[in-house]
């Protein structure tokens, strides 16, 4: 992502004038015009409008009125909002640590054992399949009566578990479903990172008589860090936006146990059409995600590699 350094402002102005008169400028704008229209219509203007909406009582019925920070005050007073946020954080904590550890393990296994494309392909297969299909598939696998998992449990002499039907296990089950879908994908990204670690580093470690475990902590993990941080940021952000799986399986239940923040926004914005209120929640979520990203980048110095 090298953005060309701008020349000094003096020459820039004259170049700028020259370029306008040249045919290339018009042609270039013709090339980027469709993309620019798409960017402005469906991204830039909506992003600004979303921010403006959050200060109004827009509800698709009456004329929207500017109400200042009223939405934000109401949101912070709404215990359902705090519940949704808590449930979402609970999901992220159930999902990310286990998924990341498994993915690191899997990436190292692939890197050390086999370069076979088929192995990588099979492991990434769940990610190629729509969330909705994965959710349906696991709804069936986890069915209390006929589902395969409970069939196995009863065969082993254990009690049936109402995975998605019980408030205490529903969120863990959703996390498990998403770990199943994403672990191979995450491992593949980390695997790509592992491939960039020079072989000599491992040879050096072997000559020093380092064990596999020690090599992992002394060589692999530090050198993988930039990729790992990047993968963590994107998977945490993705995790906060969990919706599809819940929309298909629990619909926020049982007893609001899986009523995550996206579901909260969906409910206010698209079921009750409180667009202003919903936009305000979206803005808050955006701020939360932005803060998490910045903290992670700071903590991990992601842009520097230990390789240098």
């Amino acid at each position, binding site marked *: 992502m090298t953005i060309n350094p701008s020349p000094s402002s003096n020459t820039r102005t004259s170049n700028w004038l020259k*370029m306008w008169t040249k045919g*290339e400028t018009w042609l270039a*704008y013709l090339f980027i015009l469709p993309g620019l229209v798409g960017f402005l219509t469906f991204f830039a203007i909506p992003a600004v409008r979303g921010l403006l*909406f959050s200060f109004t009582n827009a509800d698709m019925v009456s004329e929207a009125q500017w109400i200042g920070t009223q939405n934000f005050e109401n949101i912070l007073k709404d215990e359902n909002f705090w519940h949704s946020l808590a449930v979402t954080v609970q999901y992220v904590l159930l999902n990310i640590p286990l998924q990341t550890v498994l993915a690191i393990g899997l990436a190292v296994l692939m890197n050390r054992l086999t370069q076979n494309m088929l192995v990588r392909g099979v492991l990434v297969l769940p990610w190629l*399949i*729509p969330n909705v299909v994965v959710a349906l598939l696991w709804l069936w696998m986890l069915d209390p009566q*006929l589902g395969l998992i409970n069939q196995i449990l009863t065969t082993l002499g254990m009690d049936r578990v109402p995975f998605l039907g019980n408030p205490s296990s529903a969120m863990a089950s959703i996390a498990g479903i998403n770990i199943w879908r994403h672990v191979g994908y995450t491992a593949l990204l980390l695997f790509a990172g592992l491939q960039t670690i020079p072989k000599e580093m491992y040879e050096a470690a072997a000559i020093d008589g380092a064990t596999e475990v020690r090599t992992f902590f002394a060589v692999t993990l530090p050198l993988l860090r930039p990729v790992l941080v990047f993968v963590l940021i994107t998977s945490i952000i993705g995790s906060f*936006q969990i*919706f599809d799986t819940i929309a298909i399986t629990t619909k926020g239940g049982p007893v609001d146990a899986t009523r995550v923040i996206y579901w909260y926004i969906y409910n206010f914005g698209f079921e009750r059409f409180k667009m202003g209120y919903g936009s305000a929640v979206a803005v808050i979520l955006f701020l939360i995600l932005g803060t998490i990203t910045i903290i992670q980048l700071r903590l991990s110095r992601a842009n520097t590699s230990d390789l240098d």
Partner: protein
Amino acid sequence: MTNASNPAQSRSAGRRFSAGKIVAWGALILMIIITLVPLWWMIRTSLATNREMIADPKSFLPPGFTTLNYSRVMGFLSVEESRALGGSGTAINFFQYLRNSFIVTLAVLAGQLFFSSLSAYAFARLKFPFREKIFFLYLTALMVPGIVTLIPNYILIRSLGWMNTFQAMIAPTFLFSAFAIFFLRQFFLGINHELEEAGKLDGASVFGVFWRVVLPMSGPPLATIAILIFISTWNDYMWPLLVGSKEEVRVLTVALGIFRSQTPQGSPDWSGLMAGAVLGALPGVLMFALMGKRVINSIQFSGYR
């Protein structure tokens, strides 16, 4: 591992390595099994009738073999026949939803691929005022989560009168993708100028050079982007649910959600649901079967989205 100067150490290291290797292979194979069994279970269930399935819920092979569930969810059987097979009685027309999914996905694919490469080429090769500033703005689009634009885009689609139309599902991703532009620009920057210069000397226009010289040599990166666009558009659920839930334009993911909520609580139509699920999974799996290596490489890039 072969350190001749210290045979004792190398022997013990060798033994530790091979014992560890067996455990490691065991772990990898276990992960593969955990990945594949649920997928097999989906297929297995879709191949038996609900009655056969309930009679023998544990058998690893399909407890019966029929493609009737597929013809049923595709809407090829009458409502009475469907109900006899354990359907809820409401007509399900996955043939149409499958077609709708293809319409939306292929339209987005064609538009995004063409317009993104046009933009990317301009950012890589042409000089114009505000080039860097516009490109930087595009990059911010990569950072902002979709929820921020969801409600305003929904209101926009409504005010355009586009609710429950194909264009509502296609338009937002048809013209612009920050990731595709960013990715293709990187590739175009790496292309040797000489071929393009030769094209210009032959009197080709800038567009002619782009179309006849640059695009033909960009097969691999275009395929990468195409695969990623296909997967993300085909798998999308929330946006089509919001703007295209009506029967005529309903895509497969939305239809599966509705099918799931219509199936009776007490005795869900698992065979039918799994037949529908297999249909939804098919394009992704087929794509992998046909161009496995390309798909894997594409996904490794997708991390930089």
